[in-house]
């Protein structure tokens, strides 16, 4: 359960104040599939950063599963990111020197899970995302679609309740894009809340809720 109340976010760019988010309020219940849409600079990514606890709002409150996370310190926010939130980025953000296996295992490793326990979990994830024979390949030896699948496997390996995806198909060809979206939708059907920022209206229409942002405000919301 996500609840944003009257979120404001102002950036100082040179002498100018940029109002990235103005009085944004929204809620999402577990298992929602939400597309955040809008033109460039409308505040989509800023909203996603707030939702992902990568950035703090200037005013307003953010509640996640009943906890006022906007008031937590950096250490506790890191713990929530670790266990509840999975990120999927437009440019994949894989660690180039690590194999697909190690990239997926990274969150488990950083959380302190032992190597033999990781083994089974990562192997299962590789198989589930159709990467069984790519385990020892490094990112530069993988196609775009495969890279994004590795990234999704990594985002879900800690079994988060929310996936935040920022233009997950923006850097993929059409077929790979559809493949990736289908994977994300399948995860959503299994109960993970999926919040996706996208430019692509077609992709947006597949979501159960669409939020249109203009100039830092939520312009309108549509169900469908």
């Amino acid at each position, binding site marked *: 359960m996500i609840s944003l109340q009257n979120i404001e976010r102002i950036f100082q760019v040179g002498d100018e104040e940029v109002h990235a988010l103005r009085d944004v309020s929204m809620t999402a219940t577990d298992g929602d599939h939400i597309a955040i849409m809008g033109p460039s600079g409308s505040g989509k990514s800023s909203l996603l950063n707030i939702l992902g606890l990568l950035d703090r709002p200037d005013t307003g409150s953010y509640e996640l599963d009943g906890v006022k996370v906007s008031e937590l310190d950096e250490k506790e926010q*890191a713990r929530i990111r*670790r266990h509840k939130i999975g990120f999927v980025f437009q440019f994949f953000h894989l660690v180039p020197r690590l194999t697909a296996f190690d990239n997926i295992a990274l969150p488990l490793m950083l959380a302190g899970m032992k190597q033999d326990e990781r083994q089974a979990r990562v192997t299962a994830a590789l198989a589930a995302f159709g990467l069984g024979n790519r385990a020892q390949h490094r990112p530069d030896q993988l196609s775009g679609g495969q890279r994004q699948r590795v990234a999704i496997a990594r985002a879900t390996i800690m079994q988060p309740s929310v996936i935040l995806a920022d233009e997950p198909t923006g850097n993929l060809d059409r077929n790979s894009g559809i493949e990736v979206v289908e994977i994300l939708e399948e995860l959503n059907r299994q109960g993970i809340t999926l919040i996706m920022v996208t430019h692509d209206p077609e992709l947006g229409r597949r979501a159960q809720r669409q939020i249109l942002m203009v100039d830092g405000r939520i312009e309108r919301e549509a169900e469908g």
Partner: protein
Amino acid sequence: MQIQDFFRYTFNGIRAQRLRSFLTTLGIAVGIGAVVLLTSLGEGLHRFVLAEFTQFGTNLIAINPGKVTTHGVSGALLSNVRPLTIEDTAILKQLPQILDVVSVVQGNGAIKAGGRQRRATIYGVDASAARVWKFAVAAGRFLPDDPPRSARSFVVLGSKVRQELFGSNQALGMRIRIGGELFRVIGSMESKGQMLGFDLDDAVYIPAAKAMALFNRESLMEIDLLHTAGSSSSVVAEKVRKALQARHGKEDFTITTQEKMLEILGGVLNTLTIAVGALGGISLLVGGVGILTIMSITVNERTGEIGLLRAMGVEQSQILTLFLGEAVLLAAIGGLAGLGLGVGGSWLFSLAVPALPAHISWTYVASAELLAAFVGLLAGVLPARRAARLHPVEALRAE
């Protein structure tokens, strides 16, 4: 994060940039190598010099006329110094814990035998000299235990003098002339080698009273005492001081114990070792700057990765530890390579100059490795802190 995963992750970062990491570790390796090599040489010199001084034994006390002071007017200027005499030697010999006493007069003179002549050091000593200085007789015997004032004109030759004057001929029983006076050769010494450049074999030994007459002196230049092994040299020195003071009325002599001398010498040599080690430390500093540079570049290049790690819930302190760990690991690997360089270099040096063997002190080696890791830690602090303070959103945007 498990400790082995921590090492795997940081080592992976180092391995990903082979050439760069190699050059950076090389900088540290040269620094540590220099520290190890130079301290090994210093330590080798230390041992060499101490061995030179202890070849006469360690339970020695030397007494010289005149009081050495660090301020005021010297005793010689007041000219009422009572000289050390053969009688002083006899008195000191009565003291408990004193095994042997030697009167010493030393000078240079011409020594003639047959048609040959040689200038050599002439030592005026007692029968006890061979025992106190641990000199071994090669042929014949050392000076006999004659009454000091009426010793017979016997001479014992150092191995070089014997060789130069007599060659392969028989020397024992021959008469030689020292400063115009006749002496009978009753023995020759085994080669003792050099001490700090002085050839101890290019010398002859005659009774102290004869040497005093020869050099026209009325007093001794030194009295050497050998005390029992179990007794403290400072306690013995104090007794000697009291005994001599009773005879002389005041302290117009200087007592130097071998123990004290070695202590001072050791201190000087230690300082020398540390000083040359510090010289090596300068190159280590340069290596540290190399690590600082490379880690700054690494943090720049991996900004996207840092953003990712933050998004995955890694705390700032953990980012700091990861990058510090990488810097320390770089330095430690360089340090190990440097230990190899230094130890190998010392070994080569020992082969090249066997007279002055380098001695590897493992204490210095261990501290050099710790120092390398510490340099890595210091050099890593700034870049790692910058990495930890990056804003995750900014960092993620970097890729």
